[in-house]
């Protein structure tokens, strides 16, 4: 019996294209304007000023948020100081209950927070959904458990809370950085005034709403939106006993100067220019993924990004061939699309900074490679970029670009790799890819950096201390070491 095989339909002639898969936003309510969260309530700013927060993927204004002035800072710090009296005396077990509850509410509202984070900051939804929000909730959960165990955490040292913590966070991981700051502070019995970044205030305001929903005592957490001057005012307030800042090295230095002689406790988590070192025996395909994750994760807006790729010369050619073809599969575009790998650049200012440094790389003689990909017409975008023929002296090899731009350098011997990797004022992170265990430990020992990822990159966990050497700042966040930054000890 002869049966003709079915003819192919015209659909079969088309190439495989991923249809748009946008995350739903209908469950999300963004108010037209937001006030300051002080003393457990949303209050009108004294300044009467508001500024727009923009979706960097579309250029559209999402909302207007309040700009806190000195008087607002004073109100918030006073509210936090008032709350400190009772919060610091609350039993550790009760504080733990409060913080656990915050964590649970974040999990319950995870999708809302993820969508908000993506709309306000431009990061791909798959990252806010799978990384930022779960890690933020996990961070609260981890530190909640410490709240009634401080005596075990610091035996024989009489741990006492410091008082009001003034915390200033960046725009690259808004909710996660909020968690890194607030969770250990509250667990140790401090109260906080937190200022989210100017371009990404919305998830912090959603967190304020969660604090209300959780019946957190008023004044324990205060959220002040604003710009640099608000942050400076907060850092300088005399009743702030602890300053925690994550952001640029330049501003970190200003804060160290500003707090000099004040007796304020200070932790700084600043910039980086991490070396990601690939040896010739590396598991190459996984190294490629690590390189991609190291520099294109969150559009390269990552202080610990693996922005300097150090490749052993003997494998430069195959590595670059693989890397370039892998770049061709990166999906750049709508951050709300579940298949997007690289989202929008956070702001026009950041885009201009990236463009400026990339131009300097071209002028200095490096060779640029960018995959062909369509970029949306509106919003702020930058193609994933690789620079080869980069000399150690070029600006793109020394300065933090904070964008999806990789500088490729080579080395011949392990000693040379170490020398080049450490030849920077920064010291936040480093990566090493090799199949040889002893070499990993040898290299990890020699990296002057606070985090070393071996055969992986850009992994984070609440239990894992994170922070820099040298000009990448001081103090650790995460783990038991992160708790120490929020207690007075004998």
């Amino acid at each position, binding site marked *: 019996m002869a049966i*003709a*095989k*079915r003819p192919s339909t015209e659909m079969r002639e088309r190439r495989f*294209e991923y249809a748009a898969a946008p995350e739903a936003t209908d469950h999300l309510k963004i108010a037209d304007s937001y006030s300051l969260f002080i003393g457990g309530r949303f209050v009108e700013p004294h300044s009467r000023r508001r500024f727009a927060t923009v979706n960097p993927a579309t250029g559209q204004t999402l909302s207007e948020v309040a700009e806190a002035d000195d008087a607002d800072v004073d109100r918030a710090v006073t509210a936090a100081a008032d709350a400190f009296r009772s919060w610091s005396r609350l039993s550790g077990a009760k504080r733990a209950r409060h913080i656990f509850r915050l964590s649970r509410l974040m999990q319950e509202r995870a999708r809302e927070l993820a969508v908000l984070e993506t709309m306000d900051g431009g990061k791909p939804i798959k990252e806010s959904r799978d990384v930022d929000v779960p890690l933020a909730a996990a961070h609260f959960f981890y530190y909640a458990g410490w709240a009634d165990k401080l005596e075990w955490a610091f035996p024989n040292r009489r741990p006492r809370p410091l008082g009001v913590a003034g915390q200033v966070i960046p725009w690259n991981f808004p909710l996660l950085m909020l968690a890194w700051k607030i969770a250990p502070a509250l667990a140790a019995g401090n109260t906080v005034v937190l200022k989210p970044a100017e371009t990404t205030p919305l998830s912090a305001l959603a967190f304020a709403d969660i604090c209300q929903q959780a019946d957190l005592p008023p004044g324990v957490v205060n959220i002040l939106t604003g710009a640099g001057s608000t942050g400076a005012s907060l850092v300088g307030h005399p009743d702030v006993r602890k300053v925690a800042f994550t952001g640029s090295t330049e501003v970190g230095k200003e804060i160290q100067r500003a707090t000099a002689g004040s007796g304020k406790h200070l932790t700084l988590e600043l910039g980086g220019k991490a070396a990601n070192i690939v040896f010739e025996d590396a*598991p*190459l395909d996984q190294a490629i993924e690590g390189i991609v994750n190291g520099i294109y994760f969150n559009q390269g807006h990552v202080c610990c990004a693996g922005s300097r790729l150090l490749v052993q010369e003997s494998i430069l050619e195959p590595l670059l061939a693989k890397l370039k073809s892998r770049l061709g599969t990166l999906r750049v575009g709508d951050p709300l699309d*579940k298949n997007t790998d690289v989202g929008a650049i956070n702001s026009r200012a950041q885009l201009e900074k990236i463009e400026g440094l990339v131009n300097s790389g071209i002028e200095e003689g490096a060779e640029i490679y960018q995959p062909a990909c369509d970029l949306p017409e509106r919003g702020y975008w930058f193609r994933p970029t690789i620079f080869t023929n980069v000399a150690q002296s070029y600006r793109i090899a020394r300065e933090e670009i904070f964008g999806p731009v990789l500088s490729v350098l080579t080395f011949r011997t392990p000693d040379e790799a170490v020398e080049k990797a450490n030849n920077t004022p920064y010291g936040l992170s480093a990566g090493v890819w090799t199949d040889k265990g002893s070499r990993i430990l040898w290299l990890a020992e020699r990296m002057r950096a606070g985090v070393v990822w071996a055969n992986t990159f850009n992994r984070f966990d609440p239990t894992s201390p994170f922070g820099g050497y040298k000009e990448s700042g001081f103090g650790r966040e995460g783990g038991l070491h992160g708790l120490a930054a929020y207690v007075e000890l004998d």
Partner: protein
Amino acid sequence: MSLTHLGSLMRGVRSVDQVGVEERAAALAKRSIKKASKLWALDLAIRCIDLTTLEGADTPGKVTALCAKGVRPQPGDASIPSVAAICVYPSLVATAVAHLRGSGVRVASVATAFPSGQSFTSIKVAETREALAAGADEIDMVIDRGAFLSGDYQRVYDEIGSVKEACGSTPLKVILETGELGTYDNVRRASILAMAAGADFIKTSTGKITPAATLPVSVVMMECIRDFSRETGKQIGFKPAGGIRTSKQAIAYLVVLYETLGPDWMTPERFRLGASSLLNDILMQIQKERSGAYQGADYFSVD
């Protein structure tokens, strides 16, 4: 290939980091394939299926029914394509050939003492010849895992070469049985060995061992195919088999294929899915996409 050359080739095979490759596979499995792209993928999946029955209880009746299903998966719906091939034991090749003649659906036969591969090379070659003589269009052989795991790469290489020689221009799929190889490093080694020895396709599993095909194993094998293509210009095919039962899984394999090997491999010429119950799940999904309603098993024939 000489013994020393082969040994150094195997020793020089780059290692695979387990955690890294599993994370990569998990990330790709999260791709969201919707609407038109989903229908396209499901259509391609059907066209790539090697619809398989490999049971001791297989009879001409069973194979005949499977052939009918493979040619017309959804009777009365001309838009549903035929599968790529019907895959059977050598003794049932003739039955399948008789029922598929003129349909364009190919007949694939397992061979070489499937599934264990524990027999004499001469028997394996003879079995291959018999299957070809019965009309098989494709041969799915198993490698000798015992030889491979004992480090006798030469024997595995030579045996693949002998079977390929018997096949001539008939496509040879080489089953690595990755579930028995223990590590991704071994999967990578075996992939390179099989391709160097003359495989036209490399295939994950017999379906008789758990785990059978997995996404990370497929990532590793496809990366080997990509490297081999870059170095030799030869485009070797890939066939995951065993445990692929749902449309979601099939689409995940196509996503990995697309993002690892690219559009050139998205054709039955270079990609097959070894499966049996998968077909009905795909048909149900297509019907769901078209009608909007979730489907029930009673509306799809079980063959």
